[in-house]
């Protein structure tokens, strides 16, 4: 009888545990935020600094580089926000901050830290042909043609999005 009870208890606890496990995978417990989704960079094998260092210090690294760039005109690729975006833009949204699981937003919403970068900076890598130095000379023609054929182009149309 005792054995039977013990067996029953074991069965019950494993069942309960399994149920709890199933529950935790299907829906997160209340009061615990979902862990951020950290997608591996599309391009490149290794970040310009160690991952651990970047997780803790990326804001200082970016801050330092932004002053060098804006004030002194030093546009080296290492530590530049543009290069972060070029590597880390999501394959689905093409951006680092558009979707909720995109590289920057995912961690920042988990940590509840507001990012100001994308108030001004583009969240997408430089893709436009017009920006390429090879096409710089003819870049304005594309726009000229667009204005001639299309009478009204809204800001949303130009971006191809509506937030």
């Amino acid at each position, binding site marked *: 009888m005792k054995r039977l009870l013990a067996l029953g208890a074991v069965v019950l606890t494993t069942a309960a545990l399994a149920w709890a496990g199933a529950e935790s995978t299907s829906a997160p417990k209340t009061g615990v935020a979902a862990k951020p989704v950290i997608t591996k960079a599309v391009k490149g094998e290794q970040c310009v600094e160690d991952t651990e260092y970047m997780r803790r210090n990326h804001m200082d690294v970016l801050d330092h580089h*932004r*002053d*060098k760039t*804006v*004030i*002194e*005109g*030093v*546009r*080296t*690729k290492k530590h530049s926000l*543009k290069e972060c*975006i070029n590597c880390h833009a999501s394959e689905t949204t093409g*951006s680092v901050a*558009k979707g909720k699981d995109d590289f920057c937003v995912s961690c920042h919403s988990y940590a509840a830290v507001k990012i100001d970068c*994308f*108030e*001004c*900076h*583009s*969240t*997408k*890598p*430089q893709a*436009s042909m*017009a*920006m390429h*130095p090879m096409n*710089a*000379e*003819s*870049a*304005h*023609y*594309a*726009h*000229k043609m667009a*204005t001639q054929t299309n009478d*009204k*182009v*809204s*800001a*949303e149309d*130009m*971006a191809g*999005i*509506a*937030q």
Partner: protein
Amino acid sequence: MSEDKSIENTPSSPERRRFVGLAASAAGLSLAPGIMLMEVAHGRPEEQAASSAVRWGMLVDATKCGTGCNDCVSACSTENGWTPVAESQHKNQAPQWIRKLELQDPLTQFETNLPMMCQHCADAPCVDVCPTGASFKRADGIVLVNRHTCIGCRYCMMACPYKARSLVHEPLNDTQKADVPRGMGCVESCTLCVQKIDRGDGTTACVEACTASGHNALLFGDMNDPESEISKRLRELPTKQVRADLNLNLGVRYHGI
């Protein structure tokens, strides 16, 4: 000057020839005779800060500027990602980095065309009045707004005698170019295509467009280099600074106004 003349007049000795050759190779890092590793004026290495040895400037020849031609304006808007005024919803407050002016003399009916933009003053009033230091002059003479410190107070807009600056009033919804960050609540103006200069293009979008259109009314270059095309033209042509009475020492000079 007189010393230069006397040197020129003396027959060049082999010693002097050798010295000239040395000086030329030191100035331009020549790999082999005729092959230069980098250009002297604009091919600044990536990690080197902008230097005050250079002063970027522009010469506008108003006699060549085409009536009704808007190519410089549309090229600027394409390069820097601002919506052309005609296409924006609130035209009165739409940002505009460069605009075309058509002036007519009321007496003679003579018409003058010219582009007007930030004049990149050496003693810029916008820099003087900025309460946060966001409006600043870079070492190579380009007047810029550091958007990280701009609070959008628009004091610089009021101080500018050329109405060259605009405030971004509306959200841009990620329409910015990767090289040209812009944002709501910040003041902005012509940057002399600073992203292109730092890349080593040595020209601006408006100048490229003006040359492509065949008007050749715009010339960009280093005003500190006496051998640059712009310095040569400034020596030859009579030019004016707009509102020269303010003594601002402008980076943009006009011919034919």
